[in-house]
């Protein structure tokens, strides 16, 4: 089932949770709503499910307006951040709950519940109480419970938020696999960009109740539409400069970039750590003289921190272990830094 979000706004007292949001979720897609806390992503998810009502705007399922329908009539599977398992019911009863309250024939309930438990790899644990399960197991009970009523879509609120790092990675790969098998339209909320990029087909970045950018993970990552997205996707070097002759000027360094601004515009440049090159000698490209202040080579990339004393600018640089071995960098070394790629935004680019 496809979902259409049509000019949805929602206000909580003085706080604008959602501000005229429009979005389409195609049938069978796996979409991530990504944003910091307070960006409105959970509110949007709850409005889609009918657990919250919008102040204005419409929600359409398959082009049918469901804005005023209660959750019971929407046939949506919802997995809560806290899982919200029924604490006084066994795993079996939790999963069977939706079928029982919808008065499914008794004979159909048991096989259906057992199938679901097998699917979420909890067969044999049906008599346990929620309190006797680990976080990952509870999460899977919540998922089985939501899927029991054959929902037309699955909505997950921070599904991996409360889990250990290891379980979290396992579970998100498993969710991806599950989606590939059952192809149910799925929307999940997360504040973790890595999670969104790994699991989803579509990523929607939200901020202050608005959608900043929507698109395929690769597209969003490669071409962030706004400074917020650039910033939020994490780990980026930011510096202020001025546009002159189609280049951004930072002190003595002139950097070409794709895009165009009027000369004299104040602009902000964004460079990701892996988009910076480092060398002992100045290269043909425009380079910035800097001093190494910190070296951390533990991990899949070597993280170098340098300071361009001339401009009081600190930069984070990621280089490959091979390159690191080749350069033999130490604290206090004088180096030259040159960007391979830069994105420039001026305040005029994102005036609302």
């Amino acid at each position, binding site marked *: 089932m496809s979902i259409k979000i049509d000019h949805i706004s929602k206000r909580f007292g003085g706080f604008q949770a959602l501000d005229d949001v429009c979005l389409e979720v195609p049938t069978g897609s796996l979409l991530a709503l990504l944003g910091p806390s307070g960006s409105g992503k959970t509110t949007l998810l709850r409005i889609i499910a009918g657990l919250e009502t919008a102040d204005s705007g419409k929600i359409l399922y398959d082009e049918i307006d469901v804005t005023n329908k209660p959750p*019971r009539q929407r046939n949506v599977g919802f997995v809560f951040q806290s899982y919200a*398992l029924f604490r006084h019911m066994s795993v079996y009863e939790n999963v069977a*709950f939706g079928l029982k309250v919808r008065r499914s024939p008794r004979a159909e309930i048991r096989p259906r519940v057992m199938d679901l438990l097998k699917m979420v790899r909890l067969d044999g644990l049906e008599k346990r109480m*929620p309190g006797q399960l680990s976080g990952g197991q509870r999460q899977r009970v919540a998922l089985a419970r939501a899927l029991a009523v054959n929902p037309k879509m699955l909505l997950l609120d921070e599904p991996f938020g*409360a889990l250990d790092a290891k379980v979290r990675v396992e579970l998100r790969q498993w969710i991806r696999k599950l989606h590939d098998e059952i192809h149910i339209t799925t929307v999940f909320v997360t504040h973790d960009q890595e999670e969104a990029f790994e699991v989803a087909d579509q990523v929607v970045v939200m901020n202050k109740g608005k959608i900043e950018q929507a698109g395929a993970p690769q597209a969003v990552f490669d071409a962030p539409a706004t400074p917020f997205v650039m910033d939020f996707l994490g780990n980026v070097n930011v510096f202020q400069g001025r546009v002159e002759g189609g280049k951004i000027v930072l002190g003595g360094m002139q950097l070409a970039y794709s895009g165009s601004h009027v000369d004299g515009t104040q602009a902000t440049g964004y460079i990701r750590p892996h988009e910076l090159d480092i060398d002992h000698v100045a290269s043909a490209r425009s380079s910035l003289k800097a001093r190494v202040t910190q070296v951390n080579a533990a991990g899949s990339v070597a993280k170098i921190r340098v300071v361009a004393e001339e401009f009081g600018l600190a930069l984070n640089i990621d280089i490959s272990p091979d390159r690191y071995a080749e350069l033999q960098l130490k604290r206090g070394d004088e180096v030259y830094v040159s960007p391979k790629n830069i994105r420039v935004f001026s305040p005029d680019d994102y005036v609302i």
Partner: protein
Amino acid sequence: MPPDARPKSTGGGSHVASRLAQQDPAFVRWLLILACVAVMGLLVVLPVVAVFAEAFREGFATYWANITEPDTIHSIGLTLFVAPIVVVVNVIFGLAAAWAISRFQFRGRTILTTMIDLPFAVSAVVVGLAFMLLFGQQGLLGPWLKSLGIEVAFNVTAIILVTTFVTLPFVARELIPVMEAIGSDEEVAAVSLGANGWQIFWRITLPNIKWGLLYGVILCNARAMGEYGAAAVVSGRIEGKTQTMPLRIEYLEQSFNSPAAFAVASLLTLLAIGTLVLKVWVERLTRQEIQEAARAADTGGAH
């Protein structure tokens, strides 16, 4: 504890030392325990024993005759009639109030919470007088109600109304913290799974709060059976008609029929002790309910 009485660390490891640091010297502990036991014995245990001793002073036959006297039987019946009605009204009010306070944010929520406690603060006699002022024959609403054929002074209805008033906080006060600790997550989850309000209440809410509710019911019942002050004012204390057990006890005592008064008193005391035993048992289960809620919240949503 005087500051110089701090126990000295015996150097038996930091664990032992920290435990000792929290403990007062032996003589202080024994003094406090002894004081408590003495007060309890003098003010609580002794009177209870005295009640039974006095009740049985003239032998079991007299005791039996005393408690099977028709007006006394009527008073027992009346108390056992009033208390359950009051409990039912309180359960309905308590559930509604706890639901409203723990689930909704609304203007006047704090005022409502405070108002629920009001019957605890007001003396029962004052409640009775206020009630008479409203519903009595010369009261504000009394004549109007009488013209409608409804009389609510000096009868059982009056007793039920004032007893409900004085016991109003019990169920609500028990349920509010339990429901706040549990939160509404499970109810919302049930909504998303297609349950209607009725199913949610019976299958999710009630099983989660049952021990808290029962505890409130027990306290409310105990208070309802023992209610004297307000009932004394509004009932008219008519023998065989509006005399509840506490009123009967007072009446018999005033009529110099001490053994009979104590016989009824012993029955009321027995009911109280039974309630107390129930209370201790349910209290433990209620605490479990809140702890489980807290544990679920701990291991659940971390954000």
